[in-house]
């Protein structure tokens, strides 16, 4: 048996599973998005771009798409701003404190998003911990509205996403030569300069790959915006959910989902192009 045939044979179970349960469903969903729907007859098996026109021709959906990508972008930027320094600090800790920090970063990752978002709902609510504290301190008179706002979603999303950024940056920094920082120091650079001129460039591959993960996951996140944003701050994922489980207009929901898929893929490809060009520049 040839090597190549053996390799394909070993991959065959996976190929079958993915063919039947990933490829076929995605194609079916695309076809579904071309079907039409009416409230009495349900899904009709005709084919046409009507749902896409309906979405692209309605300002309501533009608001939702705009909100979704704005939230994803802001979340990504905040994750970079937090993740890079934290990863750098972690690298310089003593092994004991580093293992504690690893737990702090990774631990939440392994706890259900629903549970963590519940925590944020309790913290950010009108009668939540933050508002209570601020009122007690006399800083505000009426509670600040944080639940059911984009801001609230961003806070909770950053909590969900920042571990991915820290891990990506940390992996990049671990590959770097730690002596480079000492070299910069010996040449007279201060901490801020070292961070800006040595650490950030070394972390860049991690920042780029981390940003891609964080952005695409934030853009398609469901649990956090569903619980924190509710019906008032809807994003694409929650809109799709409502179309499928509420109004039961599956074709329209499928069209929205397809648009999400396409925009995420486009962003990913564009980003990869950017990263490759950057890598080419570094390698020469």
């Amino acid at each position, binding site marked *: 048996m040839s090597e190549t045939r053996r390799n394909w044979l070993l991959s065959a*179970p996976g190929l079958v*599973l993915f063919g039947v349960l990933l490829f076929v469903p995605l194609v079916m969903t695309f076809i579904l998005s071309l079907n039409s729907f009416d409230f009495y007859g349900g899904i009709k098996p005709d084919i046409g771009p009507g749902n896409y026109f309906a979405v692209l021709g309605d300002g309501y959906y533009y608001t939702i798409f705009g909100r979704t990508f704005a939230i994803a972008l802001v979340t990504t930027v905040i994750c970079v701003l937090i993740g890079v320094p*934290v990863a750098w600090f972690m690298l310089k800790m003593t092994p004991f404190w580093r293992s504690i920090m690893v737990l*702090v970063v990774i631990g939440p990752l392994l706890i259900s998003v629903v549970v963590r978002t519940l925590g944020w709902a309790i913290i950010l609510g009108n009668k939540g911990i933050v508002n209570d504290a601020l009122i007690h301190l006399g800083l505000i008179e009426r509670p600040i509205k944080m639940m059911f706002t984009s801001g609230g979603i961003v806070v909770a999303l950053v909590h969900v996403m920042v571990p991915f950024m820290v891990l990506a940056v940390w992996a990049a920094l671990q590959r770097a030569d730690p002596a480079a920082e*000492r070299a910069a120091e010996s040449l007279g650079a201060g901490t801020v300069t070292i961070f800006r001129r040595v650490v950030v460039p070394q972390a860049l591959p991690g920042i780029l790959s981390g940003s891609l993960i964080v952005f695409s996951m934030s853009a398609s996140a469901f649990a956090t915006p569903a619980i924190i944003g509710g019906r008032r701050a809807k994003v694409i994922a929650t809109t799709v959910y409502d179309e499928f489980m509420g109004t039961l207009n599956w074709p329209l929901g499928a069209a929205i989902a397809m648009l999400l898929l396409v925009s995420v893929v486009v962003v990913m490809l564009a980003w990869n192009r950017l990263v490759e060009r950057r890598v080419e520049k570094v390698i020469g």
Partner: protein
Amino acid sequence: MRNGVFAKLCCLVFAAFMLAPIVVVVGVSFTPTGFLEFPPSGISLRWFRAILDAPEFIEGGWISLKLGVISATLAAVIAVPAALAIGRGRFRGREALLALFMSPLMVPTVVLGIAFLRFLTVVGLSGTFTGLALCHAVIILPFVLRLVLASISGLDRATERAAESLGAGGWTVFRRVTLPAIVPGILGGWVLAFITSFDELTVSVFIVNPSTTTLPVRLYSHIAQTTDPLVASVSTVTILFTVVLMIVVDRFYGLDRLLIGEGKK
């Protein structure tokens, strides 16, 4: 070079931020009152006892447990041979194969959710446990594959050649040399896949029916209507479960290795 005061302060604030929602959920679950308050005005196990009177959560927990074990095992059984092919082979289509198997991480989960819903509805498996387990296997397979691939790439090809030169046949080499070397990767991948399945909401929310509702979906629909200390106490139990699992994994594999692929020597 050590961290300065500023760096330490940053880490402290970061740690507080990361732990805040978890501490809050755990804290709230001990309240003796009927509403969410933090810090709790007293300590009571009232809401933990209440779980016993909430069969839907207990049942959801069992379903999630069963689902996690079955789908993680299924994913491992499929991912290990694929990883062997991708990790060692030099053949056309290798890159494409890897991209395909990693693709569930790239497709937005909500898209996967509706695609599975559509597919299962058409083939008549909608809401069934079988359908749920198959779909979970697809979305958690990348986690197993990544860890097994990492352990294969760390394997010295010469070790297998050594076994071969000593007279071992293909199957014996695999069983006695290759497999023991990648077992940590398989176990690590299995645990990560199990946890992912156990916590999965976005796909499950589309494809469960009332008799197959998983714990995260139960929690979500409960929270969507009302937030009472009961969801907090159920959450606390799942946190405890995860922590125990983490401790076990850390002892045998190393948590950092589980998620970064390097770490504990």
